[in-house]
């Protein structure tokens, strides 16, 4: 484990009262390796290890734990601090309906998350409607309809409108007249480098004025998480992130990368394929997982 490796670094340097510069430097090599193996973006690893270095060097070695454990604690606590937030609540305004927009790359779990969120909000006594603005993926609208029907959420199905922006505006009308207080908009997966499709998202945002734009990301995403999130955030100014497929065994370093590059909180995690497999994000658990 990382703690064992670090204990090894420090056991040859016994008898020192403080975490000295050289031992910390060596320890950071192992920490860097662990974070990169965990898929934290290498630029963020650089910043983070430097951050940890300034926090660790000169610190008094505590009585109750090994120096290795102490460094791991510094790293762990810093990870929690960086990823934690009190603002992991959804911003649901007193608008009827309050629109929530889900965006992200292909296959990350937006449609499933849309239904999960609807179900979660229903449990919090909100009348939730769903709409799919995905006119591209085969059977995308059918997929959301099946999920929506399962949980008894209103699902707006366009008759034959093919323009995603018009579909979303019509869905707002549908939600308003149906007395829904929330409308969750599932958008088509897209590449951040597809200018036309990124413009489409801007248009939907302008038409609907979402209370909340959530960037949905696969927790097994590698180094590219930074590039993608930066792009989506610059285009839309997202409000938060949903990290999916956390029930897998990916270390989830993307969580740190996403938080650092967007400055926005991870609000939820997807923990399975079932409709109730969504939880609030807990930074401590993610920090332990990233450190392996």
């Amino acid at each position, binding site marked *: 484990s990382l703690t064992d490796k670090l204990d090894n670094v420090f056991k040859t340097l016994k008898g020192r009262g403080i975490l000295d510069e050289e031992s910390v430097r060596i320890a950071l090599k192992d920490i*860097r*390796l662990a974070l*990169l*193996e*965990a*898929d934290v973006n*290498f630029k963020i690893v650089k910043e983070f290890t430097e951050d940890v270095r300034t926090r660790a060097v000169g610190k008094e070695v505590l009585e109750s734990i090994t120096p290795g454990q102490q460094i791991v604690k510094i790293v762990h606590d810093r990870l929690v601090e960086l990823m934690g937030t009190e603002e992991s609540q959804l911003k649901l305004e007193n608008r009827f309906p309050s629109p929530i927009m889900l965006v992200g*790359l*292909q*296959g*990350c*779990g937006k449609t499933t998350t849309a239904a999960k969120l609807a179900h979660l909000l229903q449990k919090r006594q909100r009348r939730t409607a769903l709409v799919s603005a995905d006119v*591209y*993926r*085969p*059977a*995308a609208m*059918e*997929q959301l*309809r*099946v*999920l929506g029907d*399962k949980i008894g959420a209103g699902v707006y199905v366009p008759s034959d409108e093919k323009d995603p922006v018009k579909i979303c505006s019509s869905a707002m009308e549908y939600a308003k007249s149906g007395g829904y207080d929330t409308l969750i908009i599932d958008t088509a997966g897209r*590449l*951040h*480098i597809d200018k036309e499709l990124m413009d489409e998202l801007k248009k939907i945002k302008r038409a609907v004025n979402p209370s909340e734009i959530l960037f949905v990301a*696969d927790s*097994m*995403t*590698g*180094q*590219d998480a930074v*590039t*993608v999130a930066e792009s989506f955030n610059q285009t839309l100014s997202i409000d938060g992130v949903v990290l999916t*497929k956390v*029930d*897998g*065994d*990916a*270390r989830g*370093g*993307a969580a740190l990368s996403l938080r650092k590059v967007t400055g926005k909180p991870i609000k939820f995690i997807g923990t399975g*394929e079932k409709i109730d497999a969504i939880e609030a994000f807990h930074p401590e658990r993610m920090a332990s997982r990233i450190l392996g």
Partner: protein
Amino acid sequence: ISGEKVVSRDIFEDLEEILIAADLGPSFTFDLIEDMKERAKRKELQNPESLKKIMVDNMTAILKQSESPIVLPSNKIFTIMVIGVNGTGKTTTIGKLAAFFKQQNASVLFAAADTFRAAAIEQLEIWSKRTETPLIKQAMGADPSAVVYDSIKAAKARNTDVLIVDTAGRLHTKTNLMDELKKIKRVMGKELPGAPHEILLVLDATTGQNALMQAQMFNAEIGISGLVLTKLDGTAKGGIVVRIAKEMKTPIRFIGVGEKIDDLRPFNGREFVEALFA
């Protein structure tokens, strides 16, 4: 004199960054760089261009071993089982594969063995219409092995050249779901000796180090005979496949470069490495 030494150290850092950014992973990147330094020493090369060329050539050589296209047998049914974690692009790849095999004048049949996910069958049905590929399906919730059983019967009756089985996405960590795959494989082998002839693992290029776990675990549990790497039209480089190729020598059959029917290309190691360094 020391000027040249400093340049070499920068090239090592530059190359390390490129490889890590491409998801090759830190320890594999370290190994590749050590290997490159070793080769450079033997050839007494120090300039950045030669060092980079050594790296590119080495990575290409590793991938060359995985350049192995599917060769359809004549006069036999060739069965392909498509597996992988959720959302990697299995169903879309199957649509593209049908078009690809049809161009070789092979007849194709689909088995809709994802009986779990909402609208999975409908999704494959649309690809079936697009490619004029007949589809064997049952109701959502049916036993996937029953669908597969039917599809082998149908393939034999129609003298199909290629039967492609779509399975539900699943995490390799879920034992019951891996058992379901094993059962599908058993049923196929029982109905048609030698089936499945190809077990194709679909990996997403945006996935980081976990792709190695996926390949190892799917291989350990059910065996994989080929890989498809999708979503290379994005900015992720999919470098983890270099490590998979080095350690597992699994053939990389195709890459996915988009969502349309012809966005499938046979894997080429040199092109892949050039794109990685682009």
